[in-house]
């Protein structure tokens, strides 16, 4: 608060860092990396201040979603787009995750082996700026600009620095994300003109939430209702597609394993830890609030997809032999949990989703760091060739054990907190969901142990014959993650309370009963025909 534009600061700091890098001679690798890490650390500090502020001060703004640190300035008055920033209990911890994971990513940038290190670090910083922007913008156009802009640095990082088969992977990734988000742009425009018709020339989320879209009654059947294909429904589908691809939910996930397999370690840590959470964040912040009607009509489908992601991801993780692919599918499964929590539209569920976003970010970053270390040591990612690492790398074993337990959601680790809360929320929507999610947990312990034991236990193999244990720096990167996994497992209170102070607003917004219900009329039918390509 107190006048200082904190959010602008955390938004511009990484970008400024990217600029600073340009004046450093390309030869000074240490300096370049040092500056990057410094900027990342400073960002962490700033974000910490912001999160603390969110936790301690009371939110301002009488809107349905009270915000903190609000900044508002006119941007494109002609079309009512504004530079509107704000943070609340939902985004605060994701913001912290963003900064923290990025710091880790910056720490593990291979200083010597990266060619054009300056470019690499600059792109990384730009990527962080973009993700930060996504998390704090309250204007749909601004959000979209960051959302789409996020792709640029990520694309270059992946396309330039990935391994040999990066070409197809990045192409797939770009196909999926661009296709999804362009449709979202149309939906945003639809919302804009809907509001314009209502007398508001705006893209502002808070204003758009004030006059909700008309909800059309679906055709009621036993168990579910067939949703009517109103323009609102199409708009939601466009948003949902964009978010579901980024999350990703099965069946829109196929870009992810290939991409993770080809991505360089620092990018991978950041990507898996933060970028994939943007979809979940989008669903919470925009999906369920702006489109409560369509969400409720499609809820059965959405939770079904979430469960599908959980189980499908788990089964695939069980049958992979490449460490990165195992973790990739495991992450799909876990993100399915997050989606399940969101679409339960229950406060526990959404709280759990927010908590799980943070926790999964920590866990997955740790997993990929470990995989990176092991690959660097042994030169292989094939689980069948690995084994007996516990003997050679006891410290890695300690950290990896904690991370694994977090990943399989062992009670007492942070993974459990989110999962149990999500299951509680899902149960209140439909009991079977909790049971199936439980099955997912069971499978998780199976594939995680398969991976963990396959790497660590058994007799020492040829590739693991003469590997060294973690160096101090590597331990320094992994230790905080392990500590956090345990700490947030036994004392999740801070995360929970901050999230819980914001989530009720979302739940009430997602409650369709508030919004006007219109029976489909000729006008809607014509509108429908207009929407169809």
């Amino acid at each position, binding site marked *: 608060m107190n006048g200082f534009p904190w959010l602008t600061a955390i938004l511009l700091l990484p970008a400024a860092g990217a600029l600073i890098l340009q004046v450093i001679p390309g030869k000074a690798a240490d300096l370049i990396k040092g500056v990057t890490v410094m900027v990342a650390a400073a960002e962490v500090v700033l974000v910490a201040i912001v999160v603390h502020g969110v936790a301690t001060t009371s939110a301002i703004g009488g809107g349905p979603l009270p915000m903190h640190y609000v900044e508002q300035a006119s941007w494109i008055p002609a079309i009512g787009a504004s530079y509107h920033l704000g943070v609340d209990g939902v985004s605060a911890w994701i913001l912290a995750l963003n900064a923290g994971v990025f710091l880790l990513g910056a720490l593990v940038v291979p200083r010597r082996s990266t060619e054009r290190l300056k470019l690499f670090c600059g792109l990384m910083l730009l990527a962080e700026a973009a993700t930060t922007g996504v998390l704090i913008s309250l204007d749909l156009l601004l959000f979209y600009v960051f959302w789409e802009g996020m792709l640029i640095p990520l694309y270059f990082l992946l396309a330039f620095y990935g391994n040999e088969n990066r070409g197809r992977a990045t192409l*797939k990734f770009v*196909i999926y994300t661009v296709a999804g988000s362009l449709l979202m742009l149309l939906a945003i425009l639809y919302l804009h003109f809907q509001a314009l018709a209502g007398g508001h020339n705006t893209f502002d989320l808070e204003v758009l939430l004030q006059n909700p879209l008309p909800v059309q009654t679906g055709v009621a059947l036993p168990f579910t209702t067939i949703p009517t294909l109103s323009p609102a429904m199409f708009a939601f589908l466009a948003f949902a597609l964009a978010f579901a691809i980024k999350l990703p939910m*099965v*069946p829109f*996930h*196929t*870009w992810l*394993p290939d991409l993770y397999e080809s991505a360089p370690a620092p990018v991978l840590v950041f990507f898996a830890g933060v970028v994939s959470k943007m979809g979940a964040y989008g669903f919470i912040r925009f999906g369920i609030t702006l489109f409560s009607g369509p969400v409720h009509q499609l809820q059965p489908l959405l939770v079904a997809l979430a469960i599908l992601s959980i189980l*499908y991801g788990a*089964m*695939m993780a*069980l*049958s*992979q032999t490449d460490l990165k692919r195992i973790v990739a599918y495991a992450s799909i499964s876990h993100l399915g949990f997050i989606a399940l929590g969101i679409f339960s539209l229950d*406060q*526990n569920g959404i*709280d759990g989703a927010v908590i799980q976003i943070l926790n999964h970010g920590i866990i997955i970053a740790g997993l990929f760091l470990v995989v990176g270390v092991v690959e660097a040591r042994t030169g292989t990612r094939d689980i069948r060739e690995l084994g*007996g690492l*516990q*003997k050679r790398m*006891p410290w890695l074993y*300690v950290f990896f054990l904690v991370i694994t*337990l977090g990943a*399989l959601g*062992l*009670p*007492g680790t942070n993974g*459990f907190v989110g999962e*149990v*809360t999500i*299951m*509680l929320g899902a*149960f*209140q929507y439909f009991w079977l969901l*909790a*049971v199936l999610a*439980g*099955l997912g*947990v*069971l499978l998780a*312990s*199976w594939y995680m*142990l*398969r991976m963990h*034991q396959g790497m*660590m*236990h*058994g*007799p*020492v193999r040829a590739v693991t014959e003469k590997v060294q244990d973690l160096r101090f720096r590597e331990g320094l990167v992994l230790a905080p993650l392990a500590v956090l996994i345990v700490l947030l497992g*036994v*004392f*999740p*209170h801070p995360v*929970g*309370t901050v*999230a*819980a102070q914001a*989530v*009720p607003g979302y739940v009430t917004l997602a409650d369709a009963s508030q919004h006007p219900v219109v029976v489909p009329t000729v006008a809607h039918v014509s509108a429908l025909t207009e929407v169809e390509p």
Partner: protein
Amino acid sequence: MNASTAALLAGLVLLFPLAGSALCGLIGPVLGRRFVNLAGTLSIGAAFVVTLVIFVQVLGAASGHQSTTATLWNWLNLGPGNLNVSVDITIDQLSVLMLLVITGVGLLIHVYSVGYMEHDPGAARFFSYMNFFIFSMALLVLAANMVILIIGWAAVALSSYLLIGFWYERESAVLAARKAFITQVIGDVALVIAAILIFVNLSAVPACPPNEKCAGLPQALHTLSLPQIFAHASSLGVGSPLITLICILLAVGAFAKSAQFPLHTWLPDAMEGPTPVSALIHAATMVTAGVYLIARFHSLFDLAPIASGMVACVGMGTAVMAGFIALSQVDIKRVIAYSTMSQIGLMIFAVGIGAYAAGMYQFLLHAFFKALLFLAAGNVIHAVHDEQDIREMGGLDSRMRVTAWCFLVGSLALAGFLFAGMFSKEDLLGFGMINGPGSPALYIVGIGVNVLTGLYAFRLYGTTFRGEPRSEAARNAHESKAVMLWPVVILAGLSALAGWILQWPVAFGPHLIDAFLNPVFTSPGSGPIAKAPQLWPGVLGFVIGLTCSLIGIAIALRIWVRHDLDPSRALARPGLRLLPRLSFNKLYFDELYDTLLVRPTRALGRGLRRVGDPVMDSWIKGVSDVATDFSSVFRSVQTGLIRDYASYMVLFVVIFTIGVMLAAGLAR
């Protein structure tokens, strides 16, 4: 005692082992073996001392005030109507009894381990894990909130996993650890779902009976704190499907932990761990956590007769099954493991019929003699150089006298003659006579279990210690050193005397444990759920049970010690021919699960891997192909010939003009 004291003491009990674990694990490898031995054992000793203090406190407390609940810190607060969990601990007779066993027996076993792990390079890791186990077990029994209980529950499973897979270079150990852990997770999930059911349904006002109008709707509590749950258990309905379901889920959790049918197959494999582990975790304490759970949730089970009946049947069934399998196993530790399974089956049966105190009584005594048996077995294994096959042993009684005597005491206690087992088993069977589903049917089965117990107990003793040595290792085996002997002796003493002491004041009446625990188990208002038998029926039952045990022992001695009775001919009869093979192959449960669950899942995974993703991103290739085709079309019309370009222009001018004219004509 007041809450703060309780919090302090409980905190200490938790803290000491945790600190010990951290010390041993992190700086142990640096500071060396002595430090590890000291830190590892002293921490447990300290915890034991604190437990004694607590015990005294509880004994001294006025009746009705023995139970204290305290909050350590807030775990998660999601606002009213949502999940609100705080780290609560309860100190009452039940938890303190558990703590006594955990820390007491634990201390002995730690001391024993100092000797047993002497030559193992991973001793530091071992003690770290063991201490962590004590911590998590203590957390489990102290927890006063269901979430915290689940956390302890899982932490126990974790330490068990770590210790089973302690020798991680042995594939078999690794697999056994994984199997144990995943089985435990099944239990965890069951507990979580039970917790969710309770959270959703627990309400302050008793729920209305069906099809009846109520004045005030029940107002939901949305809590998972155990005292609350127990206080309002009735709101879940008496004998209703809901509470039955909850209790069944709880029971599933208990079965997973206590290796009851059908989740029992992990326990025998768990013997891959070092012997002290088997003694502490897979005999004395952890595997009895299931019994504790049901006893702790008695006020729910009291309301769900169907569920309790199921529990009782499963318990007795497991007792029989395990006893039967134990008859023909050849690995000394596996035999004891199955006997554990069988004895725990009896405990489960006891709590199933509502004789909670009896169940805990059996738990207490069983902890003594089973730990004794395992440690003694550990001595034997050491003596014969890590040989575990009893067919390679024999004649050890002359070579390691103390161990042999202690083992004999343990076997008698197990079989239920003279020593510990006699009291507890007869006690709970006595309850079985008049309580439980279809009583006294299960009681009769229980009598049979006595026979079985006698048989396998003394088959083990006979083949191991009596007769002639059947291997080189056995021939020049020799007694273990003091540090591994004293704990055994102490446990032998306990097994021999505990029963007499506890039973002393009142013969055939309620024993001290009963008196001590009953306040916990009497749901407010009514008395204990299970009626104790009258005096003379009790005496009668006692005599019958005892004779059965003796019969079993006698037969065993004739077959395996005096060798004047050969069962093989009897078993050769067509009807019975199958029995030995079934028993030896553990009724083929592993194979069954493998074919029914494991293989299909793996196959499904492989199938999905082959089909799933390729199908799901086939559309991308399709799109790109179409795009490229169109691209080549558009490029092919770009012939570079001026006349072609001109003709395109003319063509489209014509098309547009005609089209617009037609449209205009239609518009007219």
